């Protein structure tokens, strides 16, 4: 029943959800980043290099790639501390493009079994053979992806309920007011950036090993704007929001033949319309409160 085609869609939803959650986290803290694809890409390359060229075990490569992404994100967070709003967004865009272009120049090849393996600039990085070498089926890898996704979701739900999560939302609502409550935004902005970068990184390494071939062009602005759009459509009130956005795009629009070739027209239009009528998405904060109130009444009855 679950043939490879369906499984591929499901795994794509899982991996893209990670970068969507990454953009979502920053949106919640009030920062609009057009550049999460940079961390997705850094981790994709780093993780793939670790397994393919250095022979590292997968879990180590995953942590390595994501950690590197998180670090880079923290660095960018530090550099962009003094700028906000539009300036910040354009800066993230500029950074992401710098990363993408730098990947065109990245050549690092090693000879393995008589063949040259490794990233080769514009030619990309192919033969990321980990799943073949270890006989992992599509189903097993999909489960791995969702295992990671579940861990991230649990983490984010806990974060949402914690004081740190509340501080993030306060920052997103009114940074000056947050300061007036005795909190210095700096450490929280950087923390959010690092966590978001790490989560995008998880998606990146998983992606590289799933597709077995990556090239710089993949990590472009299109990917970045999509990650942002998922949260904006699905809703910024809950982690389910970006997941819904991803499901609508990949699960619905991309899979159904009718939309073939018109996906962007529909998706782009959808974002624009949502921003007019429901600027914080379907499941925005107000709606989430309402759902919780209804649920509470149900359970008490």
């Amino acid at each position, binding site marked *: 029943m679950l043939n490879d085609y369906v499984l591929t869609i499901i795994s794509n939803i899982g991996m893209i959800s990670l970068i969507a959650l990454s953009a979502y986290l920053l949106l919640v803290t009030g920062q609009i980043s057009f550049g999460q694809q940079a961390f997705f890409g850094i981790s994709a390359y780093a993780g793939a290099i670790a397994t393919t060229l250095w022979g590292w075990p997968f879990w180590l490569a995953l942590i390595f790639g994501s950690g590197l992404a998180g670090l880079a994100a923290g660095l960018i967070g530090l550099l962009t501390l003094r700028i906000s709003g539009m300036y910040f967004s354009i800066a993230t865009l500029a950074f992401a493009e710098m990363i993408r272009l730098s990947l065109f120049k990245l050549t690092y090849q090693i000879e393995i079994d008589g063949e040259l393996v490794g990233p080769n600039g514009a030619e990309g990085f192919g033969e990321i053979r980990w799943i073949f070498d270890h006989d992992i089926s599509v189903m097993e890898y999909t489960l791995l992806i969702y295992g990671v996704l579940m861990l991230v979701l649990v983490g984010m739900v806990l974060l949402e309920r914690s*004081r740190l999560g*509340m501080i993030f939302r306060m920052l997103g609502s009114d940074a*000056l*007011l947050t300061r*007036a*409550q005795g909190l210095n935004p700096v450490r929280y902005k950087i923390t959010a950036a690092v966590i978001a970068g790490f989560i995008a990184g998880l998606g990146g390494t998983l992606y590289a090993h799933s597709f077995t071939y990556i090239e710089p062009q993949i990590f472009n602005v299109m990917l970045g704007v999509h990650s942002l759009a998922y949260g904006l459509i699905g809703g910024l009130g809950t982690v389910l929001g970006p997941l819904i956005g991803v499901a609508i795009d990949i699960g619905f629009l991309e899979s159904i033949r009718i939309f073939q070739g018109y996906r962007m027209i529909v998706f782009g239009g959808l974002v624009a319309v949502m921003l007019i009528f429901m600027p914080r998405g379907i499941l925005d904060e107000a709606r989430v409160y309402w759902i919780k109130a209804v649920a509470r009444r149900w359970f008490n009855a």
Partner: protein
Amino acid sequence: MLELRSVSKVFGELSALHQVDLSIPPGRVSGLIGPNGSGKTTLVNIITGIYAPDTGKILFNGVDITGSTADQTTRFGIARTFQNIRIFSRMTVLENVLAALISLNDQSWRILRGYAKSADDPQLKIALKALETVELLNEAGVVAAELPLPLRRRLEIARAFVRDPELLVLDEPAGGMTPTETSTIASLIRERIAPGRTCLVIEHKMDLISDVCQHLCVLNHGEKIAEGSPGNVLEQPQVIEAYLGRD
């Protein structure tokens, strides 16, 4: 308690404050008044760390806090409300008040712990008590954006005093309110907020000022023109002139 010495602030070509000296006595409600554009808001912003003065010093309980940022001044014990009301509009009333209490904890690991959920959490009790004082207990679960103006002001006031600050700064607490609403706010301040606390109220509505303040300071064109008890100050010719203009 709070002392300003020779504080000046210039914005581009506009001299907003010029060599202002004033002191705010502890345990009483002081008022800062003056016509529009006299520099009241600038003064308050400097006291609460929104920006630093160009010259001069600010001493809080004898400690020099000049140039502190807004989060630092709050941690020193100064809390405020805003002229055009700033609340976390997407959060509930209760959460708004709880938000004010977050930084009271040591912020390392505890930051990851859930915020006040269980009924016996001390912070929850403090927050509910604050809401009760401003009579917003029934609205605890309402999303702040849905509150009408007078209730929003009360929420802001609750949020400001829930930390039991040493100095509570209320910036135009009656702004935009009808005379009835103004007098409700005035009694709220006079009876429930002010006792045992040092407050600084910025206002240009005289009815609230005379109802609530025991000490007044008058600004005009960025300079202090009078300071003292209300009866005294309001009689002075330069004060009357500032408000009514020269004949």
